[in-house]
């Protein structure tokens, strides 16, 4: 039978390269697992990859080539939200299903929603909602300072959080904000400004190397003794823990879209072990997203009995429920029909000494778990957001 072809785009160069390359590896693992069991309905999966260069214009070109030349059945991938927004447009025009595995902008599932788009990883709203629930119960956290990269992701991740927290706590106050450029190499003046403002909590919406650089530079200022450090979307990723084998402070409050040591399920352990065995490194969260993406597509094709009829696929994919490495015991991730956003449990932890995933010497622990249904926007909210745009 003919292969099921997936056209994947991930950044493989530049700053986000780590995520892209991990995604590629994980997608290949998932593909091989599925194909080893005989594929889907007897059809093998084939994934082609191309660098997205984290560049919307280039990605559009690649996506179009995938569709016209390579005749892919699905598009998958993309780390940057801006690229996601660009590719979802191609998906819509050509009626080719696009499975988002690692970009968080809420817009894709609300204002810019189109039926051929599905996302199998958390969006910023989910992280922010969990973070607000976490913060609401901590009484001493009153004065907030926010620093994040100056682009939509950085702002939106914060704004959702602040809005949701504000609904539940009236005594919180924003004492300052700073918006350095994405990939800013030097945070020193920002750090001195933060210290002078004396917040209780420093919320950061950095991801990747920016978190690393910020922490390294803030350490000698003893910033982490003076305030809580809170990064609830990308900060808890393994790459940070790994990048700082020495010096990473205890008690940073972090999360990510997938963790190596949570949930403590067989499936998660196996996924992590397999990835490590095949690539020699531990997966960053992006890997699990890509892994989930391939399984999601496989499940869709299995249920629909076709990879060629997008509308039929949409109809079944909207209702998929499946078990992922990041699902705790007794829970299965599922797709929500209204926004094609996967619904998942979120866990936020603190850095604690833990050497089980070397070279990291700290891992997250002291978990707080947030139920999947508590952290998604209500149907009414989504409809309101979509209406606001239409006007």
């Amino acid at each position, binding site marked *: 039978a003919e292969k099921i072809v997936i056209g994947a785009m991930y950044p493989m160069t530049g*700053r986000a*390269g*780590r995520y892209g390359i991990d995604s590629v590896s994980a997608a290949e693992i998932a593909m091989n697992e599925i194909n080893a069991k005989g594929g889907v309905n007897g059809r093998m999966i084939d994934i082609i990859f191309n660098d997205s260069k984290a560049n919307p214009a280039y990605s559009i070109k690649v996506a179009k080539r995938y569709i016209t030349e390579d005749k892919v059945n699905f598009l998958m991938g993309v780390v940057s939200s801006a690229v996601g927004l660009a590719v979802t447009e191609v998906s819509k025009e050509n009626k080719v299903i696009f499975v988002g595995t690692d970009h968080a902008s809420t817009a894709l599932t609300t204002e810019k929603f189109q039926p051929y788009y599905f996302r199998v990883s958390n969006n910023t709203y989910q992280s922010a909602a969990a973070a607000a629930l976490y913060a609401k119960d901590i009484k001493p956290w009153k004065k907030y300072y926010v620093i994040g990269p100056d682009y939509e992701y950085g702002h939106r991740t914060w704004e959702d959080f602040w809005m949701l927290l504000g609904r539940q706590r009236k005594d919180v106050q924003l004492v300052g904000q700073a918006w350095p450029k994405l990939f800013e190499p030097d945070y020193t*003046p920002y750090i001195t400004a933060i210290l002078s403002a004396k917040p209780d909590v420093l919320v950061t919406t950095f991801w990747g190397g920016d978190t690393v650089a910020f922490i390294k530079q803030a*350490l000698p200022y003893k910033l982490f003794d003076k305030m809580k450090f809170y990064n609830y979307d990308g900060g808890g990723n393994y790459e940070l823990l790994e990048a700082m084998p020495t010096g990473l402070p205890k008690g940073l409050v972090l999360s990510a879209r997938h963790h190596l040591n949570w949930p403590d399920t067989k499936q998660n352990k196996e996924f992590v072990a397999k990835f490590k065995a095949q690539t020699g490194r531990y997966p960053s969260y992006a890997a699990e997203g890509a892994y989930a993406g391939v399984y999601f597509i496989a499940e869709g094709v299995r249920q629909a009995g076709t990879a060629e009829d997008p509308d039929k696929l949409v109809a079944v994919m909207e209702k998929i429920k499946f078990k992922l490495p990041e699902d705790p015991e007794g829970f299965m991730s599922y797709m929500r029909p209204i926004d094609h956003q996967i619904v998942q449990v979120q866990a936020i932890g603190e850095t604690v000494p833990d050497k089980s995933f070397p070279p990291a010497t700290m891992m997250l622990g002291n978990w707080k778990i947030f139920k999947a249904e508590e952290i998604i926007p209500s149907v009414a909210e989504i409809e309101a957001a979509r209406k606001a745009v239409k006007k």
Partner: protein
Amino acid sequence: MDGNLLAAQFIGGLTSAMSLFLVASGLTLIFGVVNVFNFAHGSFYLLGAYFAYQAVAVSGVGFWAGVLLASLGAGAAGVLMEYFFLRRIYGRAGEAGFQILLTYSFILILDDVVKMIWGTDYKSISKPVALAGSFSLGEVTMPRYDLVVIVIGLAVAFGMWAAIRKTRFGRNLRAISSNREMASSLGVNVPLALSLVFGLATALGGLSGAISAPVRTVTPGAGIEVIIGSLIVVVIGGLGNFWGALVGALVIGEVTAFGILFLPQWAILFSYAVMALVLIFRPEGLLMKRGAVR
């Protein structure tokens, strides 16, 4: 706004300025003094960081020895690049354009080379233990390591100034920059001098990369991010003027440090705004004499 805050911001700005200057110093040398534009300067910064990682974290060499090795390594890479490639385009019509093109191709090549050798994960090296802490003056804190960076920056500025203005080598370089043919006719070994100065400039790039490795992220793609910043510093200081570059870095550092207090939303544009203002009001750069531009 209280005095402590201002003092803290000032010191923070100073530290940033020195890091900026260190990266820019190699560029002023090669671009400002010898008129060779090395777009790939940031890639040597990147190489320096990775070499330092290799030496310190992998091979267990001491920190400062690692920094030294990294600078030498980056310098050697620079000499090779000059010797095998750049040299072939000297004297060509439209040379400046080809310099951009050639060195740009090296950004691409070196980025992939780094990725092939070291992968895409973030690498780290630790500072020497003695430099891990910080000094405190009342409310104002200054990391020890930053102080060392400032000292190194000043030393580089002074050393380069002296080397260019006070030595035969520097004088030869300035001659080469205005007329390579004539310099060689007078017995200056132009190819050697160009290789050397290119090596020196890239070694400075490597030095700055190695020195920032403990406090920044060592990752592919980190090179291209520093190049525009250093260009700005070089240009607002006045081409080939080391003190100018230092002053330029200070201005950018301090404007950013104080700017973020008042206009945090516009931080990404500060350095461009400073550059535009400087160029509009002092087109030859901050420290150049009026009308002294070629």
